[in-house]
């Protein structure tokens, strides 16, 4: 289905088109939000808000980018606002339960190991939080969500070379933060 047709169907309130957009994009939007350090249960709510906002404002959508790119932008804004708002509370509570452990082998990974992994993840998100906002977005999208520089440049509405530069600086800063921690 062409993007413009899909948008038209969404504007006309076609539920099947909406379901298609949700089914296609929900997992990646959900993961993007989680990768900004939001807890699983909050990430579900936030990702639903992303779709609700998109659905409400579908008439404002300009056809100059992919709908997924637009959803990414909404998701990133919502995640950053959420993390800012709940700084020190929800973030601090990012725990093992936030990862759906039932999907993995409990028997293989001991609870102690899971605790260590949780601590490491908290350290990672806390370190990433110390980067500047643009560095943080670029780094998270590239290294954690595995998006290409081109996709990131579309989402952030900056050039590919700027993305490269942001990620390079983010890596150096993050490296120093981690080296300081393990000194």
């Amino acid at each position, binding site marked *: 289905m062409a993007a413009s047709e899909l948008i038209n169907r969404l504007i006309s309130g076609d*539920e099947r088109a*909406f*379901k298609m957009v*949700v*089914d296609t994009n*929900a*997992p990646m939007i*959900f*993961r993007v939000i*989680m*990768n900004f350090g939001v807890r*699983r249960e909050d990430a*579900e709510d936030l*990702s*639903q808000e992303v*779709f*609700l906002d998109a*659905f*409400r404002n579908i008439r404002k959508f300009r056809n100059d980018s992919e709908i997924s790119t637009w959803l990414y932008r909404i998701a990133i804004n919502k995640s950053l606002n959420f993390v800012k708002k709940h700084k020190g509370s929800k973030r601090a509570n990012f725990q093992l339960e936030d*990862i*759906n452990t039932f*999907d*993995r082998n409990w028997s293989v990974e001991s609870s102690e190991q899971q605790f*260590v*992994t949780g601590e*490491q*993840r908290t*350290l*990672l998100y806390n*370190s990433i939080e110390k980067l500047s906002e643009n560095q943080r977005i670029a780094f998270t999208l590239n*290294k*954690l969500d*595995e998006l290409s520089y081109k996709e990131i440049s579309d989402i952030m509405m900056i050039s590919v070379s700027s993305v490269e530069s942001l990620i390079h600086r983010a*890596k*150096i800063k*993050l*490296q120093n933060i*981690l*080296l300081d921690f*393990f000194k």
Partner: protein
Amino acid sequence: MNCDFFKSNLLDFYYKECNKDTCLQMREHMDGCHQCATLFGKISAVLGSADAVKNESPDAFYYTRLSAKITTMHDSPAHTRWLLRIAQPLLAACFAIFGVFVGYKIYDKLQQVEPYTAQIDAAGKAEVQLADEYLPKGDNEELLNTYFFNE
């Protein structure tokens, strides 16, 4: 390669973004330097801890809950939601004012009861006065002997 150079390329090495020669030198350095190898192990564990999120996905009822939210959104248009946002605190404020008003009224009523107790006090004083007038004057011991011990 020294340890400082190794540390300055750690993240590039982890993400396999250093050039072939540097990567080779890094590996060789780790083989000979236990400290750097340990450090790399720790940093790899931290960076790799985010990998678990890659397998995450919303639960099975995700779309059901989302469509329920959409239905609610359609059922209550924007102006109704705003009205609710204003109406709820207004209603709460009204209840609070009503509570204060009722409390004041009750206090007022209690204040009005006080003159009645004053009346009782006055009546009591009059009785005491009357009793004083009729009670025989004299020695208390004599009175006790007369009335209580019949002597």
